[in-house]
């Protein structure tokens, strides 16, 4: 399977048509089966196309976005559903704000999630994943936590979506791996100016302790004065990557795209040779239930 991680760097966002044309150029040139967009993709495209209003700073802009109705949310999802079908790929459209619809009254709830969506090559929604661990800032903004981790099938692989801050919480990768996930698709957005280590402590570490693959899409953009920028990457177990670095492909924050071919046979062979998950000792971990005592 050929996979790609996008940063949205260099993509023209002033109109949907321009966005579509630039994605078309990038994706057709690289011939991928599966593509991942970064977090805040919906916010960025909405702001740039004028569907969402800019305020003085990032937090105010995000608050404005949270207060908006569902029109842009639906338009954004429909657009990426069409793109997935047009390109014949699995497409993770990054993240948008999801306000659930009440089961009884059909009205929008007054709580919301940071949610990633994946569409299959027929343009159908194949996975919706709410972020399960929030940063301090996200809690302040009023986001809610998802309580499930969902797995779907893409080709021969079992796949899970890792949203934003979930990359730093190893429970997420472990739950996915023990439920059979081969590949984790991460939509992330780090403030620029950080070094590479927060990323290494995130998806790279999750991949190494679960012997899975990860496609890490990081946002490269300036949203209302807040700069985002980190390296897109495709990650695998160290033993089967160049220089044993764990990186199959890795770009710079300004790289629009990184792509790589996943060799699942090689991954299976290293799992067989050194079955890390089979060496877990469940009865020792009973202390983990209920998390920490503080």
């Amino acid at each position, binding site marked *: 399977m050929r996979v790609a991680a996008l940063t949205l760097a260099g993509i023209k966002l002033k109109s949907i048509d321009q966005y579509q044309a630039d994605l078309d150029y990038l994706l057709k040139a690289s011939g991928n089966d599966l593509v991942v967009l970064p977090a805040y993709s919906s916010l960025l495209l909405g702001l740039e196309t004028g569907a969402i209003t800019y305020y003085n700073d990032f937090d105010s802009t995000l608050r404005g976005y949270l207060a908006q109705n569902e029109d842009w949310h639906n338009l954004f999802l429909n657009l990426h559903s069409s793109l997935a079908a047009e390109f014949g790929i699995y497409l993770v459209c990054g993240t948008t704000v999801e306000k659930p619809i009440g089961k009884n009254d059909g009205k929008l709830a007054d709580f919301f999630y940071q949610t990633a969506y994946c569409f299959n090559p027929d343009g159908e929604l194949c996975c919706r994943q709410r972020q399960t661990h929030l940063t301090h800032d996200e809690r302040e903004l009023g986001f809610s936590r998802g309580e499930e981790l969902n797995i779907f099938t893409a080709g021969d692989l079992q796949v899970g979506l890792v949203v934003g801050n979930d990359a730093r919480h*190893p429970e997420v990768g472990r739950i996915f791996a023990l439920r059979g996930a081969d590949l984790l698709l991460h939509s992330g957005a780090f403030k620029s100016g950080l070094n590479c280590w927060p990323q290494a402590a995130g998806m790279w570490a999750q991949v190494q302790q679960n012997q899975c693959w990860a496609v890490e899409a990081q946002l490269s953009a300036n949203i209302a004065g807040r700069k985002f920028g980190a390296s897109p990457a495709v990650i695998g177990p160290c033993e089967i990557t160049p220089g044993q670095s764990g990186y199959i492909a890795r770009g710079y924050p300004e790289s629009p795209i990184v792509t790589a071919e996943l060799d699942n046979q090689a991954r299976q062979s290293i799992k067989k040779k050194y079955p890390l998950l089979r060496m877990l*000792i469940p009865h020792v971990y009973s202390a983990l239930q209920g998390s920490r005592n503080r």
Partner: protein
Amino acid sequence: MSIMGWKEKLFQRYMIWACRPSRITKHLSAFLPRPRQPEPADRRQIKVAALQIELKLFKNPLQYADEMHRLVREAADQGAQLVVFPEYNNLALLGMLPGIEKMEKEAFREKGARADKEGKGGGASVQGRGDDLSLADLFRYMSPAVKPLVHAIFSQLASAYSLHIMAGSYTLEEKGEIVNRALLYGPSGDLIGSQDKVHLLPMEAGWNLKKAASFNVYETPLGCLAMPVCMDATYYETFRILEKSGAEIALLPIANLEEYNYWLALRGIWPRVQESQVYGIKSALVGSVAGFTFTGRAGIFAPLEITPGQNGVLAEVEPFDREAIALAKLNLEALDQLRRNHPWRDYNQALYKRYFPEIYEGIDH
């Protein structure tokens, strides 16, 4: 296999005699400073030392005691309050066995021949030579001598220098079973804690080492200390449990049987420290013996947010195959502050309740 013919029994008695505490104590007393009261610890600056020891064999337990003393003195001279030794700190004592050098040469020869046959550098997986004797048999055989020896050495060193010393890990016999046990001594000379390795290497499991079923945390004037052993740091669960149990500093003795690679070495304690917000001290055994080659880089690690370079590393030795020492000051108040006001840590009880502990039940052992 049974190792115990009459000659072996006789030699074991000799080893016990040679390693007897009174002999070790008397020997060390000639060099050691007089025990003194430890300075009160300042939680804002705990000076710690991670040792990287190059493996060499000692025929005489007194030489081994001298070597441990030299290493402790070097750390103490640089102001360390806590000194951390590596995993398998008992391997050097294999030198007490007669013929071990010959055995070692044969092991290397076999390793080389196998590597030639396989057309590669060869992994260090040769078990102990001599019929079907394994290293575990040797550990069991030596345990009655090693256990009192280790206690005598580190109890006296900790007391003389008023230090906390994590003596490294030793493969010791306990109620008929062999464990890979880390030992912690306090400035009074008392053994204040121990931790048996929980997650064993496949090789260790093959030796029938007994794995522990829990992790311990010890409250000391230098903070709450835990001692996961080597492979235990492969799993985030270990450090989550330690953090939940109140650990502030994880002392990790390692003896890595692989060619050194920066990224492979990064997979242990460094990400665990980032995930669970504890300080981490990694001590490493390096060098070769009996066909085994160990590499590593001892270091002292902290959450990114409280390291000057934001890289999670407070100190790390340069060589991966020679003796070295890493020293750094830990600020437990800064750690506490970070934990209280963490920018990204979160706890999703509903998620954990949904999946844990049942998620582990599907593991195919």
